């Protein structure tokens, strides 16, 4: 190693000019030789140590989008016209106008790699990061969602990741005071060494309060607001997010940031006050690539220069070197630019909230980002060369060689039962499978009530948040993805994810208006992965054009693999819709005895990539269900019109698990049974009716007396419909006439038991049970709001509490009586957690 860049001497610009021959560790920092040569060309000399660090992180895959950029352009090129879009891609998050004076902003982002290494902090800071993106737009964050994918449920390491990630999301979001209104949880062996943790945040603001990141006005002051800067997260984006994991992953734990949600909350409140008083010229959050990214992006956006005095940055560790300060990803920090005359007021607000605000420099008109360290110039670069002019690669692409065989192996050829008993057993298996079972174990760890504006939350079709108490103006949000469909066909799979999210939003009564996405893929250096990525982006862009909803922003996460095995390609799509009056939202649950059940859309023999194929046969192959976006639009329009005239008591989207899953969820929501008759065309093959995952379908319940008018509307609007049956009310089973029936308490027990069985109900009580039954109630989970019996099904084995008014006193007794059972389950979980640290490589894919 050469002395001058590695020793204690600060490597200044002058020193770099004087020592052009010094060998620099660019390769270790993730830069290619060509890239290093370009840096030298840009600067006309070798970079200083600080500059090298800055280019390395800003030109990393994570920050520069160098492999994805040329594909992502399609989102803009194919974007349908929208008069609602106030800010689009390129800003921290897209901004959508929802009324004359209100706008919302939303975005989804990944925190996959940190969440594998240190699940709690990785997931927690994932929430923190996306919340600050929303905050940087000028908005008040008002809700979060999370899309989670883990390895095989029975793998011993999965419990470590699941319990840590869920606790981390809850721990951060709950303390920040943001309701968690929904999301998804899925399991697949392809995520074994690389879980996906995608966090979405929604914010709302008066339009006039919208902020931008473009820095203007020479003489304006650059402020660092929030937490002190430490060594955590150094190289997070380049080390973690832009390279494939190897066996040394454990050693990279210091690269994971540590979150402090309390400071995050204070940061939100302080920024709100500053925005409202119009004191801020520009703002940017410090996330991946820390100060380097925030400084260079804001300066580049405004075409200005900056003089930054790095020694002013408040440090947690005084021994930090300049390049470390520039690269640190310490959490809960924001960069603000304010006019000198506002400095006092800004500092006063920061002081009120107990958040340090430190001037670290001034805006200049030099067009150079100049960083000094105790008077010595350690960086002097054109900011755009960091932020906008990174390398762009047209990576080689090739359809994976195994895809032809995989597609030929169709699930439609698998044996399907025809008799009632076998179908009944398969329905229970599918509904209780880890991908489809009750999510209460997860969602109970999240606060869904805080802020008092949550109109719908998990397990509803979409989350609905009220924005205006007077008018009831609300937005609906859903995030969806399906890695198995995308493995079989990334173009179609991405469109299916979009269609599902669009449908989930539409069935609440909302009008879909905008899209965000998080694109999770393997290594872009693998031509097969790059082909998957390009196909998925093309599919998504085409889909958005067809549905008339623009992409407003998103995130790409590459290098999701361990060793050579890439994850299933997993684009996760978030759709935002506007609901003019929350009082008109349509819930998912069956409620009124006698309501008529109708299935909208066409059911085809489409079982490839389905949950039925995976759960019953361990099979993945064939081609995923066909996409018909025109049909999705007609369906959404129909729901909107039917809802306006009160035809709909409930709506539930059909997706994974098909009709069987939709019926089970709709029945269990409020504990109401239903009887359906198999339509003639499925008489000989009822499994297709129950398990097909054909898209563009919705299960609706219509108040009796309105069904004729409703199907008339369906005919008028060109939406196929099939009469299915009737809602039979409390204390009745889910029945498929002539085939089988399942009592709801049996269905609920089976559906609710899966996640607690896999991941435990919490550590065993301390000490011997004291007989108060205090802990007895904790094993299982009830259902959801409004369900009288829902509070606790603990020990429900004996109580069968599906009726609307089963005695709470009896449940008390049941809670006490269930101690032995809970103890058993608790001891299971006692073995989880810390001991299960051994990492596993992904195993061979099923099927």
């Amino acid at each position, binding site marked *: 190693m050469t002395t001058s860049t590695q020793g204690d001497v600060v490597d200044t610009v002058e020193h770099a000019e004087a020592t052009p021959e010094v060998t620099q560790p660019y390769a270790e920092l993730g830069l290619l030789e060509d890239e290093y040569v370009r840096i030298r060309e840009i600067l006309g000399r070798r970079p200083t140590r600080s500059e090298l660090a800055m280019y390395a992180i800003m030109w990393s895959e994570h920050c520069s989008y160098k492999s994805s950029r040329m594909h992502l352009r399609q989102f803009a090129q194919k974007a349908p016209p929208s008069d609602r879009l106030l800010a689009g891609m390129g800003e921290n998050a897209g901004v959508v106008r929802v009324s004359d004076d209100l706008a919302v902003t939303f975005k989804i982002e990944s925190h996959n790699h940190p969440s594998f290494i240190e699940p709690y902090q990785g997931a927690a800071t994932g929430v923190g990061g996306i919340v600050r993106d929303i905050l940087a737009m000028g908005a008040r964050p008002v809700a979060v969602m999370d899309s989670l994918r883990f390895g095989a449920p029975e793998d011993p390491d999965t419990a470590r990741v699941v319990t840590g990630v869920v*606790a981390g999301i*809850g721990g951060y979001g*709950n*303390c920040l*005071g943001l309701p968690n209104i929904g999301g998804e949880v899925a399991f697949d062996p392809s995520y074994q060494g690389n879980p996906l943790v995608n966090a979405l945040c929604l914010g709302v603001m008066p339009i006039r309060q919208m902020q931008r990141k473009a820095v203007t006005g020479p003489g304006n002051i650059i402020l660092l607001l929030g937490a002190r800067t430490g060594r955590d997260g150094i190289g997070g984006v380049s080390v973690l997010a832009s390279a494939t994991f190897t066996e040394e992953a454990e050693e990279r734990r210091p690269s994971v940031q540590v979150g402090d*949600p*309390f*400071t995050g*909350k*204070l940061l939100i409140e302080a920024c709100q006050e500053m925005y409202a008083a119009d004191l801020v010229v520009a703002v940017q959050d410090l996330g991946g690539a820390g100060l380097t990214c925030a400084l260079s992006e804001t300066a580049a956006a405004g075409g200005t220069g900056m003089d930054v005095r790095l020694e002013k940055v408040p440090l947690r560790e005084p021994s930090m070197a300049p390049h470390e300060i520039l690269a640190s990803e310490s959490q809960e920090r924001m960069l603000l630019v304010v006019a000198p005359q506002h400095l006092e007021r800004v500092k006063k607000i920061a002081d009120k*909230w*107990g958040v340090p605000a430190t001037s670290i420099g001034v805006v200049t008109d030099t067009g150079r980002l100049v960083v000094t360290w105790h008077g010595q110039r350690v960086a002097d670069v054109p900011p755009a060369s960091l932020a906008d002019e990174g390398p762009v690669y047209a990576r080689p692409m090739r359809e994976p060689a195994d895809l032809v065989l995989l597609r030929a192996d169709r699930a439609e050829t698998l044996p399907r039962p025809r008799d009632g008993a076998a179908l009944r057993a398969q329905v229970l298996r599918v509904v209780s499978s880890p991908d489809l079972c009750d999510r209460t174990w997860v*969602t*109970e*760890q*999240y*606060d*869904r*009530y*805080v*802020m*008092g*504006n*949550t*109109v719908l939350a998990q397990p509803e079709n979409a989350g609905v948040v*009220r924005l205006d*108490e007077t008018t*009831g103006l609300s937005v609906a949000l859903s995030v969806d993805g399906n890695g198995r469909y995308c493995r079989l066909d990334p173009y179609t799979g991405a469109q299916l994810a979009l269609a599902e999210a669009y449908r989930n939003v539409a069935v609440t009564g909302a009008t879909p208006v905008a899209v965000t996405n998080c694109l999770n893929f393997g290594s872009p250096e693998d031509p097969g992965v790059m082909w998957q990525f390009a196909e998925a982006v093309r599919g998504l862009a085409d889909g958005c054009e067809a549905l008339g909803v623009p992409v407003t922003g998103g995130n790409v996460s590459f290098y999701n693999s361990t060793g050579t095995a890439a994850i299933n390609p997993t684009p996760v799509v978030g759709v935002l819709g506007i609901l003019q009056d*929350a*009082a008109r939202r349509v819930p998912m649950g069956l409620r009124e005895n006698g309501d008529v059940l109708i299935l909208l859309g066409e059911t085809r023999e489409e079982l490839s990539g389905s949950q039925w194929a995976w759960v019953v046969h361990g099979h993945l192959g064939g081609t995923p269900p066909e996409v018909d976006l025109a049909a999705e639009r007609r369906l959404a329009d129909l729901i909107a019109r039917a809802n306006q005239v009160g035809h709909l008591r409930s709506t539930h989207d059909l997706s994974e698990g098909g009709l069987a899953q939709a019926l089970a969820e709709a029945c269990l929501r409020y504990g109401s049974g239903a009887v359906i008759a198999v339509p003639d065309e499925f008489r000989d093959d009822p499994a297709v009716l129950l398990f097909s995952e054909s898209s563009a379908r919705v299960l609706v319940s219509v108040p009796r007396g309105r069904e004729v008018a409703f199907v008339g509307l369906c005919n008028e609007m060109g939406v196929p419909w099939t009469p299915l049956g009737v809602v039979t009310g409390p204390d009745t089973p889910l029945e498929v006439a002539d085939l089988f029936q399942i009592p709801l308490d049996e269905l609920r027990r089976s559906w609710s038991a899966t996640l607690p069985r896999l991941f435990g*109900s*919490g*550590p065993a*009580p*301390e000490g011997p049970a004291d007989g*108060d*039954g*205090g*802990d*007895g*109630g*904790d094993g299982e*989970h*009830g259902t*959801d*709001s*409004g*369900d*009288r*019996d*829902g*509070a*606790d099904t*603990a020990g429900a084995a004996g109580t069968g509490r599906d009726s609307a008014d089963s005695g*709470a*006193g009896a*449940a*008390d007794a049941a*809670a006490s009586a269930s101690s032995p059972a809970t103890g058993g389950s*608790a001891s299971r979980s006692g073995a989880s957690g810390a001991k299960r640290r051994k990492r596993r490589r992904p195993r061979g894919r099923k099927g």
Partner: protein
Amino acid sequence: MRVGVVTFPGSLDDRDAARAVRLAGAEPVSLWHADRAPLMVDAVILPGGFSYGDYLRAGAIARFSPVMEQVAAAARAGVPVLGICNGFQVLCEAHLLPGALIRNRHLHFRNRDQWIRIESTRTAWTGEFQAGQEVLIPIKSGEGCYVADEATLDELEATGRVVARYVGGNPNGSARDIAAISNETGNVVGIMPHPEHAVEALTGPSTDGLAFFTSLVKHLAGAPA
């Protein structure tokens, strides 16, 4: 009728408490943790959240905040005070209520719609309920397990100061299923579930929580000036 809602750094449900006060027909007044001035309100709510990040212990730092001197004085003078969730923890830390709230026995944060039974209607905050009435209110906490020594628990029971109990399953392991307690005079109540999240049919599992706030309004209307 002015009802103060205290905002500590890290308070989260302060706006929700203010909304509930408004829906009950009273005027919510925002109180700031750093203020030492007399409160000038007819009642006080300490809202839910993570005051001071719950550092050290939930409520342990908030109890030393300047506003708490005034709150404690008001409480001792008979002004109605309601501590919800984190506010309950603050009241215990401030010794305005006995006992303590510790980590849920199962160690998870838990958010669910919880049935509770109103055991005492003789407080400033529960007069509109029927004794024995069961109501549905969200609970959402990680440190909601109420504990006290046996003698204290016996005394709370004997003097009718157990205000509400969990039914249909104890969500956190609280001693004797206790969800809410009061002081001797019934003006200070601490409750772990969140009545302010059950005040509108649109956003809550019920509107059962509103009666806590209408009870206060009625109590204040009937109280000697």
